[in-house]
């Protein structure tokens, strides 16, 4: 059983982090980013060709993390692989020691750096979760028997608490749970009221929810997210204080604001998922500021 699964089952308030593989094979910088998370998070997500930009694979970096003593969360999207490749890669991940898998539909390739590539989407997040459950039970999607079953995989999924309208998101969340999702990591949340409204409707599912936090580094980043990231809104209560300090003082101000946000979100959910986007070095300070201790 993965440490993530154990921690969630014990009812601990769980902190997870996230790193993005490099475009190329030099993983040192990525591992350096991960090193700031060591001992402070239960597990580290590794993104899968994030934003449809071709990079070093999630599986490769997950294995490097394992070798360095971290627990990875293998992100798997449906954009690039059909049902054979997805199932096969999940089995490969298992024999390499990976247990946590986050199932995502994935961005459309048209948004990335190979915009003319074939969008696969043979499965989607829901049917991928069904595939994982089927593998865990010892059968593939075609119903064929497996030689040895990866029964202690720990599948998770994502949800957007700020989606408008919220109703179809909640219906899909329920489908993901029905398909086997055991935990959720959310899209970035900045407004505790929006998150509270979401949790009021989602807590009945009784599946742990880790609130997503993308560290806001600058007012420009906040504006970019407001204009371009569906279901995410950074309110003035974050943008304004950040724009009132000098560039040099932004990290300090951002940590203060994000710590305040996490404290407000904490009673509403089962953990937080911190996406530092290159600001990993500030994560220990942020967790100290929210009085979140290193996991057991």
């Amino acid at each position, binding site marked *: 059983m993965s440490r993530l699964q154990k921690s969630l089952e014990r009812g601990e308030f769980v902190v997870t982090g996230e790193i993005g593989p490099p475009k190329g094979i030099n993983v040192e910088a990525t591992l350096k980013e991960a090193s700031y998370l060591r001992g402070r998070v239960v597990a580290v997500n590794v993104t899968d060709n994030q934003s449809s930009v071709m990079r070093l694979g999630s599986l490769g970096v997950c294995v490097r993390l394992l070798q360095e003593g971290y627990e990875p969360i293998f992100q798997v999207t449906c954009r690039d692989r059909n*049902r054979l490749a997805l199932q096969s890669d999940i089995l490969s991940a298992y024999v390499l020691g990976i247990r946590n898998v986050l199932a*995502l*539909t994935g*961005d*459309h390739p*048209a*948004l990335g750096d190979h915009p003319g590539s074939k*969008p696969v*989407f*043979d*499965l*989607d*997040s*829901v*049917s991928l979760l*069904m595939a994982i459950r089927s593998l865990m039970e010892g059968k593939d*999607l075609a119903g064929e028997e497996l030689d040895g079953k990866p029964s202690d995989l720990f599948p998770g999924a*994502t949800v*957007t608490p700020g*989606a*408008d*309208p919220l*109703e*179809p*998101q909640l*219906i*899909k969340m*329920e*489908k993901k749970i*029905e*398909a086997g999702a055991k935990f959720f990591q959310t*899209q970035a949340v900045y407004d505790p009221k929006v998150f509270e409204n979401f949790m009021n409707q989602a807590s009945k599912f009784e599946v742990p929810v880790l609130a997503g936090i993308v560290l806001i580094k600058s007012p420009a980043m906040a504006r970019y997210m407001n204009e371009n990231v*569906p*279901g995410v809104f950074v309110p003035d209560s974050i943008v304004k204080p950040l724009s009132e300090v000098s560039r040099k003082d932004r990290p300090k101000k951002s940590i203060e604001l994000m710590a305040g946000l996490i404290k407000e979100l904490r009673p509403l959910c089962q953990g937080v998922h911190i996406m530092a986007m290159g600001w990993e070095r500030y994560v220990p300070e942020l967790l100290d500021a929210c009085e979140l201790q290193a996991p057991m």
Partner: protein
Amino acid sequence: MIVSEPKPTEELVDSLSGVDRVFILACGGCPVGCKSGGEERIAELADALSKAGKEIMGRAQIDFLCNKALVGSQLWYYLPQLRRSQGVLVVSCGIGVQAVAKMVDLPVFPANDTFSSGGMQGLWPSEERCAGCGDCILDLTGGICPITMCSKGLLNGTCGGQHDGRCEVDPERDCGWYLIYQRLKELGKLDNLKKIPPLRDFRKREVPGSQRRTTRWALEKGEIYEASRPTGTE
């Protein structure tokens, strides 16, 4: 010509569960040529549905259901029957089903599965698209096609890229699943969103050999006219 094949009767009856009063609307175009439509098929369907305990409120054949203007003007004559119906069984390709869904305020149910055409369509002057996936689920999606209206062809609802009802790929493009959500809400059928459809079978992208033969031959040998002639008028 767009190639379509009758759905198995059992699947049709299943899709109509809870819909007791049915209007049968058939296309007088391509389905007549590939024998998935025509007077004979309409009669068969009426018979099968009656046996399943459904009341047939009316039946009509319109040339061509892919043309919304024709559909709208012709359905005018059937308004009383339509008002008493709970759903419309549409005997056409996927475009026709979507066109009818836009013109009537009732749930629509596809009677056929549509395969890729590889040839010319009937009229099809509007925005509805059919990918010929061969596994029509327009009955679940309020008559809006998730394969062609969603940029990713997803089967299980909106992805994280839906933004103000638009798609992440292009701000000018509607999110197909957002439209489906709105439509199902209007129809009081939001429960449909909770259903998980079977995985797609990509073998069905190929037109079955038997159908390929039938439609080509029908066109070349004039069988299409034979098929469209009402039975018993030799």
